[in-house]
């Protein structure tokens, strides 16, 4: 019983660390979700951009069977299972100035990045690319 509780706590700790949000990002996401009246934002990756992968962000209405649910600072984010190994440990921030406002991802797995930070490469993505296909 004690061990299962411990296992649960380890699991939740790991889940919480998969993705963290800065306060600015959390505030922005909270506003977006409230405005559109949607329960979740879903983070994914797709193979494109100049350097392997790029992040995708969409609204989501329900948690898919294999989606990873992250809850941080009162905000719920789903991570697409295909993206999980690429984004684990990422910190999501939001920058807002007059000329642009965007979510940025500080990803410790990233081995190289596009100037705007949208495209990035991880060792798993380069291996996948070599194998001739990327999720």
């Amino acid at each position, binding site marked *: 019983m004690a061990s299962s509780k411990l296992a649960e706590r380890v699991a939740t700790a790991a889940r919480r660390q998969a993705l963290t949000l800065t306060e600015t990002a959390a505030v922005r996401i909270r506003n977006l979700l409230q405005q559109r009246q949607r329960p979740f934002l879903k983070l994914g990756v797709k193979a494109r951009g100049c350097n392997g992968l790029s992040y995708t962000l969409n609204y989501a209405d329900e948690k898919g069977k294999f989606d990873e649910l992250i809850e941080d600072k009162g905000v719920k984010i789903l991570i697409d299972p295909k993206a999980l190994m690429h984004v684990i440990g990422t910190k999501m921030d939001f920058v807002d100035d007059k*000329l*642009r406002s965007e979510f940025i991802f500080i990803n410790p797995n990233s081995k190289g990045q596009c100037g*705007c930070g949208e495209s990035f490469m991880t060792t798993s993505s380069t291996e996948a690319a070599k194998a001739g296909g990327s999720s």
Partner: protein
Amino acid sequence: MQSSSRSLIQRVGPIISARIRYNSRLLSSTSSSAYVVKETSPSSSFTQDEEYVQLSDNCVKRMKELQADEAKEKMLRLSIEAGGCSGFQYNFALEEKPNNDDRIFERDGVKLVVDTISLGFVKGATVDYVEELIRSGFQVAENPSAVGGCSCKSSFMVK
């Protein structure tokens, strides 16, 4: 071997000759049309001979919104920097005063300013303002001088 060097010259030649023609046009006051500039939306102040950058509707709308918060009149400056994943990247800034080597493009009271050197890389392009969930900001869309480029459109290669 010979065919590959020939095609390299074929590729590089037009770029070099275009730059030479461009530079000579800067020096002389007469302009001869060396480029076929794609005419997109009709604008009476631009002719086929001139180099221009256009502003999209969204870009104008966004600039008006930004201007409402500013005390002084601001212009949007587009400049080119070396960098990014594809060679060059675009840089946007808000400024009040133009420099001597700037060209100003105006639409609906909104001014876009580009320095002469950057203009060579963006002539014929359109500045747009795009709003997505993940980001919103100014972008350069449809740049005839660029090939390839980052998907977020902040970096590009020149033909």
